[in-house]
């Protein structure tokens, strides 16, 4: 006796899954089943047990089923049932045997559905209408298979903030920026018949075509004619093809053009000199640029006179610096001020800047936690720092801490070992710790010692730069 199974019109994956569980539980053979689709499902020849046990099948079965149920072929469910039956009866690796005639056929069906989905993603065109809620986009498309639901997520992901409707002869989709509604089949006349941007788009299509490479077969393979009537740009195709040969012939026959312009040797030579010409110009660039580290609300620029005896380079601005827009004004800056005073250096006569110009931090509740810049990030900022020092031209540049060393020397060096006089490219330099390091030392005695050593370093710096 034939078992009659009625599924919903279109791609009824859920119904099919329930039916197959039932059929396998009852050991019904594929040739004993008749699959039909109807708008009013549930009129089963024999009822489907909703609670037949789930089947455990190799992982690749599910994605194949998802595609094949969308196919327009009325045999799709029977073929899938045949496949699952064989797998469940022992041929566990059946899907790996792509040469098996059934697997081969199902693969081709899945490919055809995938292609249809892909072409719908690609060739669907929206047209804009103005409604009460602002702009609204409507498309009419004719897919080969039952893929309307399968494409919905793609368009939601892409056009989440737009109101849109997709009409097809196999069902419709409506998105209102919040939720998706599935609707009945639509009609071409429900879609607008034009859009403001279509002439611009057609112009683009015409201009991007190269008549010297004409290859209409290739075009038709990838964009079959059946899609053309819903794609506004295709109206241009006949004329483009007609004129291609003569346009190309004309280009080839044309005399080589004589140069019209004189050689603007000066303008081209001037290009070599495109880099910022002053510190102010460089600072404008830095201030207008996007942070190259996460966090940073604004660039904190260097501060102090040009051509000073000493320039100090720190790591990066901190929380306070970021808020006030000035370098070395937070706790570490205050400690530096104190040490400078003890070493007899007038802060106002020195130049102060950072290797990284933005505060890199991670937001933790209300706190902005300092994060050290990576080597790559330091490198991103290096070009700016080197340009800056070119303009500032200090007698001596002091690297405060490892990040500054990395930026100035172009390679990492442990501060403890490299501490003392150094050369950075052509610049005389000096390496010492960053004042924030002193702040972090937990032990009071160690802190006092480290601070004294830091002041000693600064005294040496002052002597060297004198």
């Amino acid at each position: 006796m034939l078992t009659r199974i009625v599924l919903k019109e279109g791609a009824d994956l859920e119904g099919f899954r329930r039916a197959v569980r039932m059929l396998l539980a009852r050991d019904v053979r594929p040739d004993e089943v008749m699959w039909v689709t109807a708008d009013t499902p549930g009129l089963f020849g024999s009822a489907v047990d909703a609670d037949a046990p789930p089947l455990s099948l190799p992982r690749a079965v599910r994605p194949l089923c998802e595609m094949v149920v969308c196919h327009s072929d009325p045999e799709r469910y029977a073929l899938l049932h045949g496949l699952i039956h064989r797998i469940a009866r022992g041929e566990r690796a059946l899907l790996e045997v792509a040469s098996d005639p059934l697997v081969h056929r199902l693969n081709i069906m899945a490919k055809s559905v995938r292609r249809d989905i892909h072409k719908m993603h690609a060739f669907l065109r929206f047209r804009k209408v103005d409604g009460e809620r602002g702009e609204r986009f409507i498309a009419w498309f004719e897919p080969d298979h039952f893929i309307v639901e399968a494409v919905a997520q793609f368009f939601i992901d892409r056009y989440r903030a737009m109101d849109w409707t997709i009409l097809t002869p196999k069902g419709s989709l409506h998105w209102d920026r919040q939720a998706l509604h599935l609707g009945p089949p639509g009609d071409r006349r429900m879609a607008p018949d034009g859009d403001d941007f279509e002439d611009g788009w057609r112009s683009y299509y015409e201009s991007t075509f190269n008549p010297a490479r004409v290859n209409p077969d290739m075009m038709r393979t990838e964009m079959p004619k059946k899609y053309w009537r819903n794609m506004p740009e295709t109206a241009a195709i006949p004329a483009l093809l007609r004129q291609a040969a003569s346009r190309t012939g004309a280009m080839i026959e044309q005399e080589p053009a004589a140069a019209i312009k004189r050689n603007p040797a000066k303008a081209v030579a001037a290009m070599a000199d495109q880099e910022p010409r002053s510190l102010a110009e460089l600072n404008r660039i830095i201030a207008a640029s996007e942070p190259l580290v996460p966090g940073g609300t604004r660039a904190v620029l260097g501060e102090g006179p040009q051509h000073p005896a000493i320039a100090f380079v720190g790591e990066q601005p901190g929380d306070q610096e970021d808020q006030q827009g000035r370098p070395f004004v937070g706790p570490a800056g205050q400690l530096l001020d104190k040490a400078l005073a003890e070493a007899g250096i007038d802060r106002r006569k020195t130049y102060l800047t950072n290797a990284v110009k933005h505060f890199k931090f991670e937001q933790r509740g209300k706190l902005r936690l300092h994060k050290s810049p990576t080597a790559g990030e330091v490198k991103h900022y290096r070009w700016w720092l080197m340009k800056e020092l070119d303009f500032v031209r200090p007698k001596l540049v002091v690297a405060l801490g490892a990040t500054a060393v990395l930026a100035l020397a172009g390679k990492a060096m442990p501060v403890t070992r490299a501490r003392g006089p150094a050369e950075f490219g052509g610049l005389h330099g000096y390496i010492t710790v960053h004042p924030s390091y002193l702040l972090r030392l937990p032990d009071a005695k160690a802190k006092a010692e480290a601070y004294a050593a830091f002041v000693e370093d600064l005294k040496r710096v002052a002597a060297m730069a004198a």
Partner: protein
Amino acid sequence: MDPALTAKLRILADAAKYDASCASSGAPKRVAGPKGLGSTSNGICHAYTPDGRCISLLKILLTNYCLFDCAYCINRRSSNVKRARFSVEEVVKLTVEFYKRNYIEGLFLSSGIIRTPDHTMEQMMLVAKILRRDHGFAGYIHLKTIPEASPWLIEQAGLWADRLSINMELPLQQSLEKLAPEKSSATINNAMGQMHERIVEAKEERRRFSPAGQSTQMIVGADEANDEHVLRTSDMLYSRFAMRRVYYSAFSPIPQASAILPAKPPPLQRENRLYQADWLLRYYGFSVDEIASGGEHGMLDLEIDPKLAWALKNRHRFPVDVNKADREMLLRVPGLGKRAVDRIVLARRHTRLRLDDVARLSGALRRARPFLMTDDYHPAALTDRIDLRQRIVPPAKQLSLF
């Protein structure tokens, strides 16, 4: 659309069309935020023009004014072509409006060099920045960077773009000197090297910098370079700079051609063979030497594809037993693509393959037949027949319409 804007679009799309690249794949997976627009995909072609090429991105120049004088380029300063210039806002608007109508996957922006390389690069960077920041644009952005621009601009551009590219232009250094007097191979190579470093570092440090990598393009047929030169250059570009793609662009006649490069029909078949060879290089384990050995005097065989050409010259390695041969050798069988080979390797774990089975796994059995054997089939003397080439090669097809 505003007719003045359409007129500019015509000029600046026409000026950009000689760049072959149009890929929109490789970007990290993104979807539109609640107020944003766009998503990324594995590459979608939204239309095909009658030259058979895909339109994936809005491919335009910011301006076709240019101070340089590259002989192969329609935009060189000495050409009489009509000029135009978009404002940053105009490019942003076109991209957004085209994208909303599902015409494109995103933007591919290039430019002639005006004022200075930095000025030009900054304008391009701004387009990308405004799209991302002010429009929440999550679609694809490819910027053609200018090798002469300052590093900070490349750093900034890398934050917004999915892909940055620099054109190699010509495979031979001496032709670059001759045909593009203002350009230098050293600058180009340098810029590619730095780009590569930045991309690798950013990946290691999990930062965003041109996540879809870099690509480049070479013009074929504008200089004396033979196919072997071209392929060696590509091989170097793949291994040294980890290029995602090298594009080959058959030099095409342009209106207002330069006197040193008289117009000829573009060598389309040559371009096609180079793409096939490039594929063999990247995915089929062939070396440049092996590929070149299939042709003559450093040029690939135009009549047959490079894999078949190699097989015909190495018949002693065939027929290959489909049920036994290793993957590397199966990949060398003409007519068996990577997909087919994967399926064969998987299927033969469970069953023995016969010729019918292979026919279901490969779309090109006619070409493969002389080079393979199965349990029920052996090509016998076919593999060694002198007229094998004539038997496989379809009668020459008219490829151009001239």
